[in-house]
């Protein structure tokens, strides 16, 4: 009797568990299934249509993908985008590390809060302005040129500072840097202090402690920082437009196909390598507990 009751109770709780599990997950799963994965499917399906002039022909074909593979231009653009994304990701990870070390290990908690607010303060100014501010700094009659001329370092303004690969690179590094700092601060803060003290007591020197204790524990945060700035750079289409010398990036060509060059099927096909690269990269970094660090 008691056993039966017990079983009935367990069954009830089991049902309640799956019920509340389902209820709790339903909103997000449904929303994403419809609006995110549904739309990604629509995007992929669109890639199999093609354009003839301004007309979209809605029959399935591999035409866009053939162009993607055969025309060297697309490979060049994908390669260039990947190169910038890797460089920006590495630079941001490299710049974020000392800042995160300073914030977590040197600053008192109160000061850390204030300085962390300053770190993400650029995010509160509009993204477009953040990118465009580099035009104000690097422009022919901008801050840097005038400054260098006043110092007498250069005789006349260097016009190649802005609208160049350099200005795109520096603006991207700047724009995405806060996104690399935050996950690093989060992982460093989670390192238990006794661990650091123990390694000191056991005679680890400063660099040994960093290499053997801190960096392994901070690895997910560093990876997350790299991945964030890498991913955001891969998809960026505004900064190259505002500051570039006309070189195309994946984001630009996709945006153009959905805008001025109106051919959504080609744009969708161009989004495919972007999507693929990032999903593969996520698959590689996912195993290291990176999502816990975001």
């Amino acid at each position, binding site marked *: 009797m008691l056993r039966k009751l017990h079983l009935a109770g367990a069954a009830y709780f089991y049902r309640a*568990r799956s019920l509340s599990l389902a*209820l*709790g*997950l339903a*909103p997000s799963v449904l*929303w*994403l299934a419809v*609006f*995110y994965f*549904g*739309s*990604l499917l*629509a*995007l992929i*399906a669109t890639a199999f249509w093609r354009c003839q002039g301004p007309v979209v022909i809605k029959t399935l074909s591999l035409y866009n993908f053939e162009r993607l593979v055969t025309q060297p231009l697309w490979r060049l653009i994908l390669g260039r985008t990947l190169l910038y994304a890797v460089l920006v990701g590495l630079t941001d990870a490299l710049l974020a590390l*000392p*800042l995160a070390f300073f*914030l977590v*290990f*040197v600053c008192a*908690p109160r000061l*850390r809060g204030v300085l962390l607010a300053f*770190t993400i*303060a*650029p*995010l*509160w*100014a*509009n*993204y*477009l*302005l953040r990118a*465009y*501010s580099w035009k*104000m*700094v690097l422009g022919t009659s*901008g801050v840097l040129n005038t400054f260098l001329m006043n110092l007498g370092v250069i005789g006349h303004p260097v016009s190649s500072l802005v609208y160049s690969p350099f200005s795109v690179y520096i603006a991207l590094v700047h724009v995405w*840097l806060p996104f690399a700092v935050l996950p690093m601060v*989060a992982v460093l803060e989670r390192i238990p202090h006794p661990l650091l003290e123990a390694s*000191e007591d056991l005679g680890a020197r*400063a660099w040994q*402690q*960093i290499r053997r204790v801190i960096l392994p524990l901070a690895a997910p945060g560093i990876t997350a920082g790299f*991945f964030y700035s890498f*991913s955001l750079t891969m*998809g960026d*289409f505004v900064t190259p437009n*505002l500051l570039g010398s006309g070189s195309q990036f994946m*984001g630009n060509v*996709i*945006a153009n196909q*959905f805008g001025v060059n109106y051919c*959504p099927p080609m*744009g969708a096909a161009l*989004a495919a390598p*972007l*999507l693929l690269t*990032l*999903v593969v990269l996520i698959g590689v970094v996912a195993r290291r507990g990176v999502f816990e660090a*975001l």
Partner: protein
Amino acid sequence: MKRLWPLWTILGLLVLIFLQLPSVVVILYAFADMSNYVWPIPAYTLHWFTRMFQDADVLRAVTNTAIVAVVSSLLAACVGMSAALTFYRYRFRGRYALQFVILMPLLLPGILTGVALVSMLSRLGVPLSLLTLVIGHTTFLTAQFFNNTLGQLRLLPRNIEEAALDLGATQFQVLSRVLFPLLKMGLMASLVLALTMSIDEIAVTFFLTGRELTLPMWILGRIRLGVDLPLINAVGVVMLLVSIVGVGLTWSRLYKSPWSR
């Protein structure tokens, strides 16, 4: 470790200065008495701020952006939080995979969310409007909320919940009287962050705005136009001020709540 403090201080401050420098230039040019960016600034004026408050386009763009930010942040808060609470409470099969799935709109760049939604909406014949923009923003903000809330929940001592249950609280009471009060400030912080992200977002906004005018689209249009450039800076400075007030009000508690030891 202490021996390396000077090194981290110097390098860290240099990076911090690099982060702030362009913002300083943006702010200075907002007061510049000229119509493009030439250094040094010859004279200072408040002209652009008065211009801004008379500009009908700016006001319309600000209103639209604010509506989208508030509606999508609140929607995302409901959706993201319920997922985070469920993740915190239960271990289930495919948990890790599902976490990855929910985070995807945040992990992949916004341009993919934007063009994908446009493809689907145009297939369904849905015209672009502020509503479609809300859908786009809610999608990535849900991931943001989920991630923030889960992070804050993880830092709560596990036994708080068990203690409440032992003392006879129902599941609902645990949520409303224990978890929610503890999370309140963290949620405020997430909300502020979500509002900022929505206002700042350009990729999704660019593809889903349609004919409506939003702040990023207005700024982009003005940059392309290339006249009266400091007007953009003035708008940027006001946005910065509003954010600083908003974040300043929540920051001290915001910062303490998720990471305090």
